[in-house]
């Protein structure tokens, strides 16, 4: 269980940086960040973030608790690890963002199901669990469906041309989804992983 924020509700809090250092996975290493910005520069998704990792880290130091806990930066991270590979100070940026995302959700700053990325993750994991593979059509369909029928129709139609192009070039197959051989075994692995994760 995560330690609660020392002074929740404050916009700026002098204790926030310490709290992140002590409670977020990899936070102690974040103290070594020298603000070079290689992480933000390397981030393939950086333009979609409200702040890059560099700036988010500086905001943490500045005690900007409210802004950090509502930032979409952690949620947008695709875990490509480019930042981790390139960081000259060996700051595990990806871990920090992942755990910050969890803390945002846990401490109620982000409703658990409110985020598009979470909806996508759910679709992804449904497919992965069911077939051991990600089936583009089903994952996309399920993801679009989570926004309701009207949105589903709208987004599907927008992407129809791309989908047809894929099929024409043999990039997307028609028919039953592919699946792995030992689906039972895979489920057991995933269950075990979940169990380990829930132990904290």
């Amino acid at each position, binding site marked *: 269980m995560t330690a609660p924020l020392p002074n929740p509700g404050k916009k700026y809090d*002098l204790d926030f940086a310490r709290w992140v*250092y002590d409670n977020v996975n990899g936070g102690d290493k974040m*103290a070594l960040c020298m*603000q070079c910005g290689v992480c933000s520069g390397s981030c393939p998704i950086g333009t979609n973030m409200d702040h890059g990792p560099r*700036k988010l880290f500086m905001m943490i130091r*500045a*005690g900007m608790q409210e802004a950090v806990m509502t930032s979409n930066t952690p949620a947008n991270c695709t875990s490509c690890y480019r930042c981790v590979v390139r960081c000259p100070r060996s700051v595990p940026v990806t871990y920090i963002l992942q755990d910050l995302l969890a803390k945002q959700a846990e401490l109620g700053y982000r409703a658990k199901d409110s985020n598009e990325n979470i909806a996508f993750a759910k679709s992804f994991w449904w497919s992965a669990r069911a077939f051991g593979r990600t089936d583009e059509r089903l994952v996309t369909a399920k993801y679009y469906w989570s926004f309701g029928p009207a949105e589903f129709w709208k987004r599907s139609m927008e992407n129809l041309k791309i989908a047809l192009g894929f099929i024409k070039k043999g990039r997307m197959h028609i028919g039953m989804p592919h699946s792995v051989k030992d689906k039972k075994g895979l489920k057991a692995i995933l269950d075990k992983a979940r169990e380990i994760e829930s132990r904290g």
Partner: protein
Amino acid sequence: MTETATPTKPKKPGVYVCKGCGIGEAVDADALANVAKSEFRIQTTATQDACCSDEGVAAIKADVDAGTVDGVVVAACSHRVMADRFRFNGTPVVRANLREHVAWSQPPGEEDTEMLAADQVRMAITQVQLTLPPLPSQVQEYSRTLLVLGGGITGMTAAREAVKAGHPVILVEKTDQLGGWANKWAGRMPYRPPYRDVQDSGIAKLVEAVKADKDIDVKLDTRVVKTAGQPGAFTVTLSHGGQESVVNVGAVVVATGFRPYDATKLGHLGYGASPDIVTGVELEAMLKAGGELKRKSDGKPVKHIAFVQCAGSRDPDHLPYCSSVCCGVSIKQALQITKADAKASAYIVYEELRTPGTAEEFYRQAQEAGVIFMKGKATKVDAGAMQVSYTDELLGTEVPLAGLDMIVLATGMVPNSTDPDVPVVEPEKSEAQLKGDINPFSAIPVAGYKPGGAEGPTPPAMPHLDRIPEGGPILNLQYRQGPHIPVLADGFSDSHYICFPYETRRTGIYTAGPVRRPMDMAESAEDAAGAVMKAIQAIQGSKMGVSLHPRVGDLSFPKVGHEKCTKCRRCTVECPFGAIDEDETGRPIINPARCRRCGTCMGACPVQTITFDNYNPQMVNAMIEANEIPDEFSEKPRILVLACENDAYPALDMAGINREKWSPYVRTIPVRCLGSVTLQWVSTALQKGYDGIMLMGCKSGDDYQCHFVKGSAIAKERMSKVGETLKSLALEKERVTMAEVSIADSHRVPKVLNEFAELIGGLDPNPMKGF
């Protein structure tokens, strides 16, 4: 020359022309020997394949030993090389530079090249004929004892180092205990590998060692009342509880350290508005006291603390400079607080964090320990809300750090180049000395000069001149030029910080530690060792009657022809080292051991009666006149370059080594310093028919490069008066100019010369030619 004979000027010099290193291909060596023979009636001339070879040196030596020559002209390479080869038992040796300045920088075989080579030989023969082998200044009663002023880490280290080198020390400390500021420090920045943790200051051990040393005479509660004399023989009057005593010392190391910047001037950063806004020095004392760090106001433990860096530093309204240690100190304090209490948050608000060298390791250690570094300028400190607002440069926004328990202002260092506890003596004179010294543009108020007059340059406004630390003189020197050790901008004691960092402008007196520049304990200790070595050299030098830096080992010293002296006092005022005093009638008295042999006095003397045995106005005058000046129809102008031999001449040599070409019309005479250039040389050259004159020397100003500190600045000042002379001769102003050259300028120097040659070529020939 034998030991007993009175030295005389050479009557029968020998001239040896070298053909090596390309000289033989560039010029006709036999013709040059002929110049010596026919024009100067030199009996002994020779050409050699290489003068510096064993055979060449042996041949010259044979002539000297046989007594056929009593002075030697070696027409070969620059005098800056092979000096040790051409040394013949004190016989005057002059070198005509045919290699760097002729063979390597001029096209071979041309008429102009031959003319230049011949002039080089003419100047060298003239010079040697007027050279008197110098005898050392009279060896005086000298003391081997060092006086060290200040009992802090610098002073104590200096004392220990001096004793190790075999010199007894008198260590004077004005308070009642040794240790200085270090007594108040709660540890020091790491100075040993792995440079990561706060280390013990070690001051107690050092104090014990100093007290136990029988060669160190520690004088506590003691002050210097006055200091007189010169290196090797200073007489220092000390006062202890009203009792005065006089000690004789050979040299002085001033380690008076620093005082923290007066924080009461930092009202805009909240100092004084709350007891919880403290300076770094105050926090250090709280940390030293030990125990949990508590607020002064209500005794609550300090959980959130912010350090405001550059409090009053790098600020044009306060200290314009960086004190270099405050960043390290704040890191140390924040680390100590963070390590003592894992829950504490220590914020360091900085603009640029300066952690040179191994301090970078220490910085990293603090980051690892969780000290929080914020980059931005503190804009406001609110004592009520205990809030530091700063503009975060990495976020681009204003960030409030509110509800802090304590705010620390990292204040800078002010040098103790004056003593704050001593009243200012003769305030106006004292200020004039300090300010006049630092302002390189200040007019010198003596006879013959018009400070601020119509012709004189207006001194530019220099705001930093107001930042001289308040207080009286620390040594109270009984010198003609005043009681202070001169300071440079910002009040640190003046030294040639690139080449001779420990030298002050008072020979035999060396500053070490933060009085010289801001520095930490490790640097101060190192500085102390350096200054002591210099002080020991000063004692040795005075014993042998030789000069110190930069003319190390020079035996010559200025002599005043009292029968001609008009008592105008220019020499006593202009000497950059305060070497000249006055007797009661106003006659100059030279203290040879204080003198650095730059010749600034010689350049100052309006009647040219200050001379060195081997360098004087008459000699250079004759050298200028020795050159052949072609008539005005030949279209061969002549340009005289008086080149400072510290930087400009080596740069020219280097240009020659790089085979850079420059105008063949240039005739170069090395001078000890531009300060030694007397205006008489300029007028002689103009009357002789030179078309242009260039003074080539070091940079002046408060970032001067002049090896004699004020020499090039004084030359600049004098040159500003040369316009009148030119006007009276109906000549163009552009004919006389000055060029600033550094030793690294070898590629620029030929361009400077060529541009000037082009300018002179564009003017009509000097109408004085042939008169």
